[in-house]
């Protein structure tokens, strides 16, 4: 098993119970596997935030990052996670 560190923001942290937490996953798990595990636990509430209305495509306005890099510049949902990876899932923010 590997341990993944997850950070998230605003409504997502309320649904997930904390803004930072750890998840255990089997070796060679992907980013998609992580999302599956999260949605299995928090499905109905969580899904509309993470996916487009088809329930499959990652929501375009959410930032999904592995070690700070947007997964769209890695292998998207197929990005293989490593032990101690830092996952960041951020709802849209603005201002500054």
């Amino acid at each position, binding site marked *: 098993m590997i341990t993944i560190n997850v950070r998230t923001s605003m409504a997502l942290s309320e649904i997930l119970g904390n803004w930072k937490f750890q998840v255990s996953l089997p070796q060679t798990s992907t980013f998609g596997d992580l999302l599956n595990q999260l949605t299995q636990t928090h499905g109905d509430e969580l899904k509309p935030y993470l996916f487009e209305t088809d329930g499959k495509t990652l929501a375009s306005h959410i930032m999904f990052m592995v070690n700070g890099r947007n997964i769209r510049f890695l292998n998207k949902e197929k990005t293989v996670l490593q032990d101690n990876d830092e996952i960041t899932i951020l709802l849209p923010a*603005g*201002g500054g």
Partner: protein
Amino acid sequence: MYKGGYTGKILRINLTDHSVKEEALPFQTAKDFIGGAGFGIKYLFDEVPANSDALGPDNKLIFAPGPLSGTNVPCASRMAVTAKSPLTGAVGMGLSGGHFPVELKFAGYDALIVEGRSKEPVYVWIKDGEVKFRSAKTLWGMKTTDTQQIIKNELNDQNVRIACIGPAGENQIKIASIINEWRAVGRKGLGAVMGSKNLKAIAVRGGEKVKVNDKDKLKEARKVFTKAMKDSPVLYPAFANLGTPMVVDHLCHMGIFPTKNFLGTGAYDPIEQIGTAVQATRNAGKEHCYGCPVGCSQVKLAKTGEYAGIMTEGPEFETMYSFGGATGVENIDAIIAADRLADEMGFDTISSGVSIAFAMELYEKGILTKEDTGGLELRFGNDTAMMAVLRQMSYREGLGGLLADGAKIAAEKIGKGSEKFAMHVKGLELPAYDVRGAKSHGLNFATSFTGADHCRGYAFQEIFGIPVPKEVDRFTAEGKGALTKWNQDIRTATTDAPTMCGFLLDMAVVGIATRNTADLMEAITGISYTPDEILSVGERINNLARAFNVREGFTRADDTLPERLMTEPIPGGVSKGHFISREELKLMLDEYYIARGWDVKTGSPTRATLKSLNLEYAADVLNL
């Protein structure tokens, strides 16, 4: 002559001889520059002589709302204030909202140009085309809230809108701001320019409606705009309820919230000390600019210790960084108090906080000692010391006097190798983004015509993941030159010139911005633009601003970043290890100049580029 949007009049006030002149707004100026930032840059370049003393009578202060201001287009009560900056020596321009910008339109003017220098302190009272100079002797020395209230009482009109300076502007500290209500034209020392002219305040009242060329077309264009606002995934309810300080959490999560003068980014992460959860415990209401349905401005009330009972409109995100992250101060009530103090004394929260953070690092390193600080233990996190220095700044007292003109000038006075710890570009202190982990944002800081300015070419693709015009990897340098140019031009063209709140661009309308701006302009003014022509207005303004800076002696060598960002990787968090190497900066700058059609060696606009933008006269001025 103008079918709508424009009043067609420029008001010119000369403080030297207390004369007033109304001029017609030339049509070509309106067409080529739209308004706001465009008018500011145009009049600055054309009228302020080369190498003028920014604090002398030759410098001019240009207040310019845009053609959308005062119409029923939401979030358009904005103005650009432009002058040569005493802080940087480059273009000094800041934008502000509130109610003052539309009031200037209602009083009958597309722009107000302030010239000369009054012998005695005055304030100017503009009411429906009538201008009076009134003594400000009794106001001199007053804080900004008192100044505004006393002028309202004196004029027997509580709805007068006022832009004024506090003691900081009077004392010409180079990080002084201009305050209207509780909004600020915060950066680049424009308050010092106002102080140098002995101008305490400008009070405005007007009853003229802004004409609209085609109400049906406006209704359609407005519908598209408001639909984009409603469809925004962030504007409602998040941004309306949390305002800009929500970005503290966001940037901490991304590992680019700068802490401890950029020494601690990612490694020291104050989300639990000053993030949104703590911010919510200090909520005391919210404010709206004229015609804004969002109301992002959060009013906060300090609740503990010596700061209890202090209320402020803010602190905005940038101030949470400058008085919080940058200084390592974790007491949110101290940050609230510092924000209020800065607004009352009239100085920039970013530059003042970052300058103190710089001094804190020097103290930690032993370059400054207790002898220099007047006995203050000026360590990161010491809010009492921070407040003490802030109080000194406005009056140039003690260590505050050393820091009152910003970190760059302070470093030049201190020496001892302190220059490399001063976080600025062209003398303007860095805003709240550790651009080692957002490289287009960094290139914008290096190339913006006002110095390290997040309000010029904000890279929302990197900071918020918005995929317009394309998705980008924030850690890479390649391709960032053209992107930065696009970001600078679209912001200038669709928000800073027309004028429109910049937050709406990244949060709601960026996908339709040039088309919608063209539609709004045609509906309101009757002047037709294609979307590409709208973008070209932004390019034109950025080129003329650059031409101003070239005339003042700026070159490619000034388009750089603080040494720390180019040599020291981010120490912790998810952006750990990233930095902008000198090679990457060179690559991005080369790309940027090529995208702009500028001379890659000098960074100057070329004659061909200026000519293509109807700016050949600027090439003549620069002897290109």
